[in-house]
């Protein structure tokens, strides 16, 4: 049974508030996340995506509006956000740059140790986290962190957050800078996390192909405001609006759009190569027949 775990209403936030360099990043953003959600948050550079997600575990506090996460009101200045940071794990952009311990196992164990878990519990959490991101525990736990490949380091960083056993996982541009194989591995890990471990997942991305491949629902930000939300099919069918927001659409949707303009009968909401092929095939066979 799904319940609402995050509720953001009319959120405003400025950077460098009270200085001559102040800039407003959020002007009334909205967001709702359910406990079984798999969401993508999209928007052009500077649309406030990263600022918005930093409110979800209390790294930033609302300047105006309300943020409720797991029933806790982050507008309350006296609220201690630290317990919340266990339940909401945020993986920042280029998370491989936040690794600091020479061995992989110790780096991932940082979180559980901070929580004062027993050594057995730390070990169990590290093992589970590593397996969830596809790093073998025995093979990798004593490897030298800074000698790993970029994709492996990113998975170590992800495991470091998973070791806190969050119920909501937020990833900021998780696939940026990865090669196609690293990207595919990461996406399948995320899909498994959502399906098997029951973790709600939010990805912040402007790679439309990643969004189409992974997300079920999409929220779109522009200039600090939420301008669209809906299922991934609904959103990518609104091609012209997305273009106006200077956002792309997945390559397959793009192709489908062009084909439709050229007079072929293709549904507006195709997302995958297979779907498009299927549609074209039935189309041409029905015409032939």
């Amino acid at each position, binding site marked *: 049974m799904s319940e609402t775990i995050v509720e953001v209403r009319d959120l405003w936030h400025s*950077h*460098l*508030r*009270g*200085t*001559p*360099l102040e800039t407003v990043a959020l002007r009334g953003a909205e967001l709702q996340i359910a406990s079984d959600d798999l969401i993508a948050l999209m928007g052009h550079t500077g649309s406030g995506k990263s600022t918005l997600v*930093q409110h979800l*575990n*209390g*790294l*930033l*506090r609302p300047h105006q509006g309300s943020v409720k996460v797991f029933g806790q009101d982050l507008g309350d200045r006296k609220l201690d*956000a*630290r317990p919340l*940071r*266990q339940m909401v*794990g*945020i*993986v*920042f952009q280029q*998370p491989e*740059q*936040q*690794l*600091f311990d020479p061995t992989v196992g110790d780096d991932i164990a*940082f*979180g*559980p*140790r*901070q*929580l004062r878990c027993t050594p057995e519990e730390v070990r169990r959490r590290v093992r589970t986290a590593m397996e969830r991101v596809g790093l073998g525990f025995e093979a990798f736990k004593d490897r030298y962190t*800074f000698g790993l490949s970029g994709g492996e380091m990113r998975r170590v960083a992800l495991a*470091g*957050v998973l*070791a*806190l056993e969050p119920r909501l996982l937020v990833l900021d541009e998780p696939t940026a800078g990865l090669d196609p194989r690293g990207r595919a591995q990461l996406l399948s890990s995320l899909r498994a996390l959502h399906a098997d471990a029951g973790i709600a997942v939010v990805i912040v991305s402007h790679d439309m192909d990643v969004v189409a491949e992974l997300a079920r629902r999409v929220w779109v930000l522009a200039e600090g405001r939420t301008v669209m939300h809906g299922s991934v099919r609904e959103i990518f069918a609104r091609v012209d609006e997305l273009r106006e927001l200077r956002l792309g659409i997945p390559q397959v949707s793009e192709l489908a759009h062009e084909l439709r303009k050229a007079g072929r009968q293709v549904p507006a909401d195709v997302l995958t190569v297979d779907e498009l092929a299927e549609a074209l095939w039935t189309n041409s066979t029905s015409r032939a027949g």
Partner: protein
Amino acid sequence: MDEFDFARGVTVGQYVPGSSILHRLDPRAKLGGFVIVLAAVITTSSYLGNAVALASVIGIVILSGIPLGYVLSGVRPIIPILVIFTIFNFLFLGNYDPTGSPVIWRQQLAVGPYEFAFTVTENSMKQTVQGVVRIISLILLTSVLTLTTTITSLAKGIELLLAPFRRIKVPGHEIAMVFAIAYRFVPTVADELERLMKAQASRGADFGRPGRFQFAKRARQLVPITVPLFVGAFRRAERLIMAMESRCYVGGAGRTPISLPRLALRDWASLAAALAFTLAIWNVPWPA
């Protein structure tokens, strides 16, 4: 105040665009004036003289058109250091006072085999108070210099000021380049620090529980920050070297400027004002 909002506290190395007289001055005049006023601020040795120096520096800040509160907030990060500096100077400086000025307060304290002596003399008191005022003046003055000058123009100013010394092998261009690069990365590193603290907090790190003055505990907590920060700094440095080499950067040799700006009347006037101010500070017989 947000928990991780550091960039707000760093005013040195920021630049705030504006059109005040300070913004429009030639960087050479600004640097020259800065050094001249600096000499007055750090050499005057009376309560009144220091107060006048601080007031004048605040006057310069107001002239720049940048909100005074913002410039003053640059002092906040060093308050712990100032407090410790003040306590130690206040308690111990009088022990080693060779001037024989009158003793205001003296206390002997024996803890086990150790003996401590605390002495406050009129002279040590004055030095303590002056030290704090001077540091604050220095920070304000340096902040206002960088807040009103872009890095490129500051570097150009340094290069031009050092140009006459090339004959005695002073590498003016290189010094300016080193300075510009170092300065350029202050805000970058501050941003990165903030990002790293947020990232580590998101995986369980706990900053801010020990008080401002529990240094050992704070230091231990900072390992997950300092290691990636240094790794990042080295990586950035290497990239920068690559970028410079691939554009055939060889230093200042054979390089000619596209324009040679002349000092305007306002530049000479501001230099003269700075000089007059410093001479005045030096020559007024401040009481005590």
